[in-house]
Each structure stands twice: as C-alpha cells, then as structure tokens.
C-alpha cells in the first residue's frame, strides 16, 4: 500500500492537533477520518448517481428535442429527490414464487460491489481512501459482485423475463470483463504497478503524458476499455439485460420501490466509477496539466475538480452514446466481445509489451521531445 488518506493527512499539522484531541489513539482517529470521508464520498456519489438520472433525462430530451423534467425545482433539478421519495413510499411487491432470500440479497450485493470500488478511486493525489498496491485489480475483482447480483436478481424473481435478463446480463458482464481486464493490464504494464498512485505518477504534466497518448496501442486500449465498460455497466447500446422492448425490464422486472432504487443507484454509481477509472487510467486523473511542486489542501481540491470534470465528461459521452446508437442483437453482442474486442485487447497487450522492451518504456512524447 503506497498511501492512505490518513497517511496523507498526517503530514499536516492539524493531524497532530486532532491526534491530541483523540488522546493519541491513532486507530480511533483513523476510524473517524475514514468514516467521515466515507460518508462524504457515499453522499457525493449518491448525489452524482441521482443527478445522473436527471442528466440522462435532460440530455436525452435535448437530443430528442424535448424539454425533459422541468417541474421540481429550478430546471427540474430536484427531480431525482422526488424520484427517491417516490421509491421509498411505493408499495413493496414481491412475486409469491420468488426466492425471498436471494430476492433481498441481490440489490444488496450490487450495492456492496459498487460501493467497495469507491475505496480506491483516486479523487486527487492525496484524497484517495486507500491507494492499495493491487488497486485497479481490486477494483475489477470486487465489481464482479455486480455480475453475481444481476444473475441473482434475475433468478430470484422467478419470472421468465427476469430469468432471461439475468442470464444474459451475467454472461454479458463476465464476457466484457475480459477486454476490460486486458486493457487495464496494458496500462499496468506501462505504469509498472497496479496502484492508482503509480499509474497517476506516470501521467503528470501536460496531457501529452497521459497514457492515452503513450503509444498507439494504449490509444486503442482506451477505446476497448470504454466500449467494454459500457457493456459491463449494461449501458446502451449494450443494455440487453434490461432491453425494454424485449425483456420488459430485464433482471429487475419484478423489483419495485426501494429495492429497484438500489439497483438503479448501484448502476449509476458504477457508471461514474467506470468513467472515473477511465479518466484515471488514460486521461491523467486528477493531475493538473502542469507540473507543480507545492502540495496544499486547496490544490487537492482543484485536482478533485479536474478529476470530476474528466469523469463527468466521460459520463456525458456515455449518456450521449446511449441516446445515439441502436441496441445490438445478442449474437452481435457476443461476437463484438469475443471476436473483436478480446483479440484487439490481446494485440494491444502484446504491442505494449513489445513497446516497453523496444523503447525502454518511453512514450511517444518522450521519444519526440526527448523527455525523461
């Protein structure tokens, strides 16, 4: 582990003051700091997720030349709160044939899987909860809980639509995990480590140092990653598990009220996480576009803003894609994954490895401008 939030904060003076307040109990202080920040991040992400629904509706309306939600709050911006309230107050219906235990468990697993990924998301160079040495690997691993939850949601409902959606969803998620993993592997190879700190430290400075522009293979890897991530989060044009014209609503057909809400929340947060990871891996994350040596809290906040801007830009692209492209057929979905993305990703991996050996790990920019 390179660095945690607490170890980052401990270099400031106010940490010692706080330590005094907590009676020199470092563990308890760490617990408090983590708890506060965890709650803040969950709150932030829940808001982003909620705003995601709003943004989705607004952007789709924009694309389709409609107005979209405009009643609740200014420009309808509080629409997501209204939705939330509605979900809580809806009646909780469960099919009598359902497997009740799994029916409850499925959304919870989705929520756990998505929330757990937030621990390693690099908001800035300092504001990262735990910069695990296996960071990106951990993120991929724990987010596969979502696949299980999709399958369980489909299974537990004991409805034919749900079952089909669940099976499709699970096989789609696991299939697209392969190109995503291999693309991430390429970046791991270039960065020489799996932790976000290591990955970001290689992308400091001007945008030319981003891994996106490191070499041609990494450039392709970004698109492979992005397409795979779209499919992994069940976003259009890969939203077959919840294809409304085919499967009613897919694996959450039978879910109502609060549980449906959690599924939706998990999905939107996951989209944000995936975009954030894409920004961190390929677009330099929270790194400012110039080299700066001082490290103060306000600068960290600037970094957070940069990171959010990049992630939300990708988020916008995701929504844009959704309302632009038609949905794929299921056989096209599988052949895109296995016959195009995976071979391309493997090719990229090999290309990156060869690049590493041939050019001693230098990027195109280094070669052209003679850096490092």
């Amino acid at each position: 582990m390179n660095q945690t939030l607490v170890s980052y904060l401990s270099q400031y003076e106010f940490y010692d003051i706080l330590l005094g307040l907590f009676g020199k109990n470092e563990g308890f202080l760490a617990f408090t700091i983590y708890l506060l920040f965890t709650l803040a991040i969950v709150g932030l992400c829940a808001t982003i997720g909620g705003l995601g629904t709003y943004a989705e509706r607004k952007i789709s309306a924009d694309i389709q030349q409609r107005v979209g939600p405009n009643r609740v709050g200014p420009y309808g911006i509080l629409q997501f709160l209204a939705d939330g309230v509605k979900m809580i107050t809806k009646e909780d219906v469960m099919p009598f044939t359902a497997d009740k235990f799994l029916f409850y468990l499925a959304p919870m697993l989705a929520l756990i899987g998505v929330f757990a990924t937030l621990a390693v998301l690099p908001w800035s160079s300092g504001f990262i909860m735990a910069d695990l040495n296996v960071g990106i690997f951990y993120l991929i691993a724990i987010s596969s809980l979502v696949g299980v939850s999709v399958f369980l949601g489909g299974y537990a409902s004991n409805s034919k639509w749900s079952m089909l959606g669940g099976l499709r969803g699970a096989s789609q998620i696991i299939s697209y995990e392969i190109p995503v993993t291999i693309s991430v592997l390429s970046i791991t190879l270039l960065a020489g480590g799996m932790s976000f700190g290591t990955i970001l430290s290689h992308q400091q400075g001007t945008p030319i140092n981003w891994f996106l522009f490191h070499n041609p293979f990494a450039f392709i890897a970004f698109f492979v990653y992005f397409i795979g991530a779209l499919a992994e989060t069940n976003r259009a044009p890969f939203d077959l598990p919840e294809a409304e014209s085919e499967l009613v609503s897919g694996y959450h057909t039978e879910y109502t009220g609060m549980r449906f809400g959690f599924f939706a929340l998990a999905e939107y947060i996951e989209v944000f996480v995936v975009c954030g990871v894409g920004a961190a891996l390929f677009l330099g994350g929270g790194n400012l576009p110039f080299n700066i040596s001082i490290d103060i809290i306000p600068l960290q906040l600037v970094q957070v803003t940069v990171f959010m801007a990049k992630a939300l830009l990708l988020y916008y692209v995701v929504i844009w894609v959704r309302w632009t492209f038609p949905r794929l057929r299921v056989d096209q979905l599988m052949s895109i994954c296995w016959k195009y993305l995976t071979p391309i990703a493997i090719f990229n991996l090999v290309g990156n490895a060869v690049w590493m050996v041939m050019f001693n790990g230098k990027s195109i920019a280094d070669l052209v401008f003679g850096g490092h």
Partner: protein
Amino acid sequence: MFAQVLFLMSAFLTIGCAIAVMVTKNIMHSCIFLLGSLIGVAGLYATLGADFVAVTQIMVYVGGIVILMLFAVMLTGGKDFVSRAQNLLGLAPAMGNKWTYGTGLFVGAVFLLTNVSLLMNVSKAYPVKNFGNEFPSTVSAIGKLLVKEHVLAFELSSVLLLGALVGAAIIARPRKQ
C-alpha cells in the same frame, strides 16, 4: 485493533457461511453462502498481509467460479431437484438424508479429533507473533517469483488452463441427439 476486527469478521463470515453451505437445502443458496465464505477467506488473506492472493481469491472465485456454478445450477434444472431430493420426512436437508448427514458428521468429527493433537503441537511450536499493523506489499515479489523461480509452473498453468478450456468445451458442447 482493526486487524483483529477484520480477522474476527472474516473468520465469522467464513465459518458461518461454511456451515450454511453445509446445512442449506437449496443449492442456489448454498452457492451464495459459498460466495460469502470465500470472501471471508479473502479477508483472512488480507489479515495475513497477502493482498494479491486476497484479491485473486475475490477475482477468481466471486467473478468466475461462483458465477459458473450458478450457471451450472441453472443448466441442470434450476430448482427442480429440490422437489426431487430425497428429503426424508422433510427433516433432513435436500439431496441428502439423515444417514448421509450422520456419516458425514461422524467422519468429520473423527478427522477433527485426529487433528486436534497436531494443532496442539503447532501452537506450542509457533507461539503467537504480533505483526502489528504492518501490511507489506507482495505484488512485485510475487511477480518476480513467477518470472524467475516459478516460471515453469507459470507457463504450465497456462497449458493446464488451455487443456481445461478445450476439454470442458468439448464436454459441454451440445451434441446431435
């Protein structure tokens, strides 16, 4: 402090879910409890400082094996076998009866008893060490070991996996009736 908490949580998750796997009627629930148990084991790995193995455990088991098992359960008839099980008088769990459980528990107890003395010896030989709060990274060391000393095993594992893939694909592929 946190290490102990994590250890306790993981241990209880592991053991509780393992027991649940043992006693649950429904095979689907068993799979999910297995998932819990495996995540618990991953937590135990984390307390042992094996971060890479822990994440691998999650990656392979949660992302792969459990989903594969769920698929397999669905392909072999979903919940149908619950009704077809030898559910003796409705008392013993599915797909097993009093006798099988009795035998199983008996053999388990015998094995436990034989191993207790072994455990005693071990606990005498290796007293509790306090590693404190440290959490060393194992990734690069494992990477170097895989490239240097265990390179043959590394390459052979890919052959093993290739064999498993081909073999399983041949076995599972639908055939002419």
